[in-house]
């Protein structure tokens, strides 16, 4: 018997919060015998199910369902990962606050005579925090100092613009995560997609409308090709997608760097590694007029989110992909083609990462450079994890990250703080969501059932 069997071989070991019928729930407690006994006690509270008499049937199940309902709802909220995610963000902002305080010049100055006049230090701290968070708010959400309405909402539209590529790439990675693939390759897929789309954008001169569509498809195709490679290798040879995608990121970056040395990709009469600006016909139209950067790519990203939701929750293909991700053995035994699933997931994820590239080259930047991808491909991993790989969650997480990025300049100008603070906050969020038990112990939240089993 292998370890995995030992772990999964205890179906009774995961007492559902619903309170399964009494004898089974009892078994669950017996099974999770270990040092985690005290936590088991906590979870056992919801096993208030009335004992079914004899071998009765569904009448009792119905009764079981009603009894602890209110408790169940509460517990579900407490156990939900969403709460953990929010708490992770709260904790990150709190620790970020400490860093802000120490990064502030006035605070450091006041600290030199701390023992003479400690009040100065504390008020400087308060000022630093206040101005930092107000700068983040003004830079990301609403600039209440602006004279016009347009000026007031400009920060938020900037946030949405920044969020657009993250939504695209995050959606693709989320599909992968749910299908059991840890795709690190969004960076490379984004770059290759951007390259193909940008080339179509500046080298082909097609009529209005058609040009944009072809360029968008080019982006998706480029990403899909770059996603297909690791998917195919995994399905056929078992090559691990983490390693293959990481390596493909390097290949993509250096391939683009080389392409940019070619005349075909350079501006006329220039040796700089930067492409010509893509034709206006291939650019996403602006969504709110020329005063704002927000473009139709954002709307396309929302449409893709809906498409991904439908794919994963309603289609037979999504059902297959989720089954393959959750238990490939059972999926295979049920007649599903696991290899095909892996390839498809990587192609779809790659296409979405390619669309993230389109938000850059056809939207905000309009040119291709080696810096086009920035750290988008990696930030998208965080976005997908933060959004629990669900479309709505991914959108929210992308907007949060877009906001932090949009706020960077304001933070520097208004509060005199280094932009790096926002990256630290981002990194802290990742750190906290990667360690749910840490967040839970800080905020004293109960552990969900499945993690208890692992602990047991």
């Amino acid at each position: 018997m292998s370890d995995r069997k030992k772990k999964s071989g205890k179906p009774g070991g995961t007492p559902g919060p619903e309170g399964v019928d009494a004898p089974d729930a009892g078994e669950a407690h017996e099974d999770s015998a270990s040092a985690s006994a005290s936590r088991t006690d906590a979870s056992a509270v919801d096993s208030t199910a009335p004992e079914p008499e004899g071998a009765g049937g569904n009448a009792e199940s119905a009764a079981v369902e009603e009894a602890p309902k209110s408790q169940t709802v509460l517990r579900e909220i407490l156990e939900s990962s969403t709460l953990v995610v929010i708490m992770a963000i709260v904790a990150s902002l709190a620790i970020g606050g400490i860093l802000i305080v120490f990064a502030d010049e006035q605070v450091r100055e006041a600290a030199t005579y701390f023992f003479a006049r400690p009040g100065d230090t504390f008020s400087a701290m308060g000022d630093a925090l206040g101005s930092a968070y107000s700068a983040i708010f003004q830079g990301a959400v609403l600039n209440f100092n602006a004279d016009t309405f347009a000026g007031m909402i400009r920060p938020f539209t900037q946030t949405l613009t920044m969020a657009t590529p993250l939504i695209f790439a995050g959606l693709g990675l989320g599909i992968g995560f749910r299908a059991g693939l840890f795709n690190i390759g969004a960076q490379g897929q984004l770059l290759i997609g951007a390259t193909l789309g940008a080339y179509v954008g500046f080298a082909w001169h097609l009529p209005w409308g058609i040009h944009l569509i072809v360029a968008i498809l080019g982006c998706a195709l480029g990403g899909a090709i770059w996603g297909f490679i690791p998917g195919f290798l995994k399905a056929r040879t078992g090559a691990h997608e983490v390693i293959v995608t990481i390596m493909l990121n390097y290949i993509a970056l250096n391939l683009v760097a080389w392409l940019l040395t070619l005349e075909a990709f350079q501006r006329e009469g220039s040796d700089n590694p930067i492409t010509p600006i893509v034709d206006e016909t291939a650019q996403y139209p602006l969504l709110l007029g020329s005063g704002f950067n927000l473009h139709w790519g954002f709307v396309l990203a929302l449409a893709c989110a809906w498409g991904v939701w439908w794919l994963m929750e309603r289609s037979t293909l999504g059902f297959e992909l989720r089954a393959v991700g959750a238990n490939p053995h059972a999926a295979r035994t049920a007649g599903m083609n696991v290899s095909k699933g892996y390839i498809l997931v990587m192609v779809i994820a790659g296409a979405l990462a390619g669309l993230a590239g389109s938000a850059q080259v056809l939207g905000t930047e309009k040119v291709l450079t080696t810096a086009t991808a920035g750290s988008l491909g990696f930030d998208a991993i965080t976005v997908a994890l933060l959004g629990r790989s669900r479309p709505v969650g991914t959108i929210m997480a992308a907007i949060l990250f877009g906001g932090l990025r949009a706020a960077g300049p304001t933070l520097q100008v208004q509060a005199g703080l280094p932009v790096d603070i926002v990256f630290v906050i981002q990194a802290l969020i990742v750190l906290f969501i990667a360690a749910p038990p840490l967040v839970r112990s800080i905020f004293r939240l109960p552990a969900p059932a499945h993690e208890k089993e692992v602990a047991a």
Partner: protein
Amino acid sequence: MKLELREITKRFGDFTANDAISITVESGTVHALLGENGAGKSTLMNVLFGLYDADGGQILLDDEPVTFAGPGDAMAAGIGMVHQHFMLVPVFTVAENVMLGHEQVKGPAKMLDVAAARAKVRELSDRFGFDIDPDAIVENLSVGAQQRVEIIKALSRDAKVLILDEPTAVLTPQETDELLEIVRQLRDSGTAVVLITHKLREVKAVADTITVIRRGKVVGTAEPSASQEELASLMVGRDVSMTVDKDEAQVGDTMLEVSDLTVVDEDSQVTVLDNVSFEVKRGEILAVAGVQGNGQTELAEAILGVIAASSGSVRLDGDELTGRSIRDNLEAGIGFVPEDRTEDGVVATFTVANNLILDLYQGAPYSRRGAIDPKVVTSHAEEQVERFDVRTTSIEALTGSLSGGNQQKVVLARELARDLKLLIASQPTRGLDVGSIEFVHKRIIEERDKGVAVIIVSSELDEVYALADRIAVMYHGRIVDIVEPDTDRDTLGLMMAGAHGDEEEAA
């Protein structure tokens, strides 16, 4: 030594897992704790072992009240426990595992005294005839041998009371017999043995005293001379028939024809199925008996196409199945209940409703043009849960939260939802309690009576006898012989060990 548990009560919230349970265990006796899964047996032993704090009651050793803060205290007081899931380090040797937690050192450099541990293992192994090499790596040992290592571990710490938690759940019939022999030897050498089990035969074979627990209460004590029916009804709380009612099989024409099926494992180049040929007719149950690991699992998987046949043919109703996809074979009318349901049968993190369509989602009415119809899925699930009496809080509950028996009902409900030509069920009742076993058996016989050809793979001889119209015995990847169900246990046992039936006949 005398161990007494007096009025032990353990509650989890409002749920009382142990309700004033009292038992007494004396040296040189075997005390069986009999009860269904979830009756509270393991909770009681975890209280005794110091893993749980009791909410009431006392533990007395030789009439002295004691309290154990943890397993360490319990072990120091002479109580040893062999868990259902072994607590061994797979990459360590037997001796290293035995010394783990009790390491002795020697010399000024404080080197581990492996020699002492090795000698201890050898001494205990010789005394009880365990046949365990102290230098063997644990992961290379059979499950039965690993269990003996656990017993040696407990004995090496001078356990006077040895608790065995569902010790036979993972053992083959042969290993079970060996274990029962060991239990007798331990008893004769003065150890008190507590045997936690829900298997009636073992209890009757070895126990001196039987305490039956149901829903956290002692519902009675029994003598080993009590009949299986009596014990079962005490345990379940209603009358249970131990034999399956079935009529004479109405055998039709041949449905499945397997000829010269050979499977060579790709990685190890071991021949796991060797020229297997047999037929199954409509309306009959062929039970495949054999000690675990003699090719039965591979046979079931090769028929469905989970593993590829190296040569030979499998024909269902005239159509060749080898070389086709699993989906094609499922759609051709095969129902498949896999041996390891948590691994291959259900997706634990899916809802009950979704698991009920795990191999049906592809076609109407569950989906149309690639889109799943949630309404149909829901109504289908409600219907199946009702029909198969799946005990779940809702069809949206995660399947992993169900008990093993209810998960098996989900698998069975799904597989029987289609019109079948052939049903293959591997170890259909492994780990299930008496009530669920009865249910599953009834359903399988119903399928047979509908004219479906049925193959049951089971390492439980009781099950083989209960269901089979014919019995195929496998040994080393071959079918030793196919015999009538009136063949006696001893003959079957010998065949399972490879005797009888020469190789020409098998081919």
